[in-house]
């Protein structure tokens, strides 16, 4: 059995987790601690990177002290989100992970935040998506279609060329005077609305590629609301607008995913990211991607769909054991534009973990005596 410590600070959740992987490859979550900053960022109407970083810094040490043994006993490796994300926020998690790896002399495994979202689907008992696996990742900052051919082998089939789907929800919420975060508030308003009341544009739907675009949709809503200014306080009108707008987003997401299924014939499909919380998207994904294609599909429960460190540790569980996935803790840095399809460890300086270990041993000859000059 192996036990991985996961650390995630790419956005506005400070998260630590311990995940173990048994002999049969099954994962189990021992600890999954998430401290959300959502209340703090509400005042700004959204996440502010520097504020997020300061809050991570305040939270992460008490969390570590409280949850993890000081000497790192029983932990086989440290796995951290190295990107993509907000630069100052990412740096906190990365620096903490580097320090722990150096101090405890345990391998350091950097992973992509998106890889973590995908591996959230391996955290559920009895579920092991087959390869190739098609992943639709939708969150406030990302909208991507990824084909996973095997563990650690990712191919990007499509992505948003402008706004993420979650952002389209947030902007619409703002225009309708709903509070942050927008997605859940639009979904709530849309519940009793007519999704076919108004026709909002479905960008790139006729394009043969698998890319998304939501900027035009947001613009069309702005001008639509200006034209119907007198109705904006009418509750029925608001519900219909929210439902129709949500329908436009969900339809594009589902149709493009269905197209990817037809083109690539995956053995399984998964939904990941915070927008996976959207009920309509979940229902349509299960039905139109799963049932229609007789394809095994999985959607993580909310706790694993939104940002967390269990998914990061899960990714680490599958990377553990191969030294090519380890990085020297002295040279790792956060990469806000980290690309999932580029081999993560090799996107940093060459992995020289073995050498780093020897260097550390010299520095730490007297155990417990922390070196003063490095």
């Amino acid at each position: 059995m192996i036990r991985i410590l996961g650390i995630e600070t790419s956005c506005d959740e400070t998260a630590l987790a311990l995940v173990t992987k048994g002999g049969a490859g099954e994962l189990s979550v021992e600890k999954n601690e998430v401290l959300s900053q959502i209340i703090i960022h509400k005042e700004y109407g959204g996440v502010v990177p520097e504020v997020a970083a300061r809050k991570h810094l305040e939270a992460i040490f008490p969390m570590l002290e409280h949850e993890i043994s000081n000497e790192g006993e029983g932990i086989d490796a440290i796995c951290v989100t190295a990107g993509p994300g907000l630069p100052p926020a990412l740096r906190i998690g990365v620096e903490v992970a580097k320090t722990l790896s150096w101090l405890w002399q345990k391998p350091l495994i950097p992973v992509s935040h998106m890889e973590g979202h995908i591996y959230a689907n391996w955290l559920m008992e009895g579920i092991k998506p087959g390869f190739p696996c098609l992943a639709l990742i939708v969150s406030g900052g990302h909208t991507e279609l990824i084909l996973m051919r095997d563990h650690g082998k990712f191919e990007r089939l499509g992505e948003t060329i402008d706004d993420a789907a979650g952002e389209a929800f947030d902007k619409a919420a703002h225009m309708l005077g709903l509070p942050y975060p927008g997605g859940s508030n639009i979904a709530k308003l849309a519940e009793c609305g007519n999704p076919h009341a108004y026709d909002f544009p479905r960008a790139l739907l006729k394009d043969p590629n698998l890319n998304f675009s939501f900027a035009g949709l947001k613009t069309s809503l702005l001008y639509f609301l200006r034209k119907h200014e007198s109705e904006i306080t009418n509750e029925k009108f608001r519900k219909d607008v929210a439902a129709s707008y949500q329908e436009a987003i969900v339809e594009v997401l589902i149709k493009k995913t269905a197209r990817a299924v037809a083109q690539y014939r995956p053995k399984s499909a998964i939904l990941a990211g915070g927008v996976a919380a959207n009920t309509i998207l979940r229902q349509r994904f299960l039905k139109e991607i799963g049932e229609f294609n007789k394809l095994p599909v999985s959607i993580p429960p909310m706790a694993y769909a939104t940002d967390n460190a269990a998914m990061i540790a899960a990714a680490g569980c599958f990377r553990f054991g191969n030294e090519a996935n380890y990085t020297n803790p002295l040279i790792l840095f956060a990469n806000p534009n980290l690309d999932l399809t580029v081999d993560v460890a090799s996107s940093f300086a060459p992995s020289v973990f073995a050498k780093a270990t020897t260097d550390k041993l010299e520095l730490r000859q007297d155990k417990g005596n922390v070196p003063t000059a490095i």
Partner: protein
Amino acid sequence: MTYESHSTEQTKKIAADFSKTLHGGEVIALIGDLGSGKTTFVQGIAEALGSTVRVKSPTFAIMHEYPVTHTLIKKIVHLDLYRFKQSVHLEALALEDEKNDHTVIFLEWPNMVDYLPAQPTQTITFTYKTENERTIEMKEISII
């Protein structure tokens, strides 16, 4: 100087031409409604300056940084102040730290607040005419 654009490609071309006038240290205010072409313009700039990463809307994250491979300019910072209501909140962005000779800063919605930690050196105003028609107006700001 005022330009007309009828497509995303034209907006990017105007941006690429504009990028030739940049040498680092500029703070550029981008003014215009949602969907008037601001992010598309920054995409054009980044591509012209050699960014390998696709510029995306900064609304969610507020601030994006893109490394570029230009001889003088090393980084583009793209900010969206749409959600800010008070200047004091801007302190949290530590924008002063980003101001240097190797960086060009693009500020969307600068007029959401009454004080900016980085004063724009020029403004570019985007006007939505019809679905496929925008005007892009560039102005230098003289420092008094």
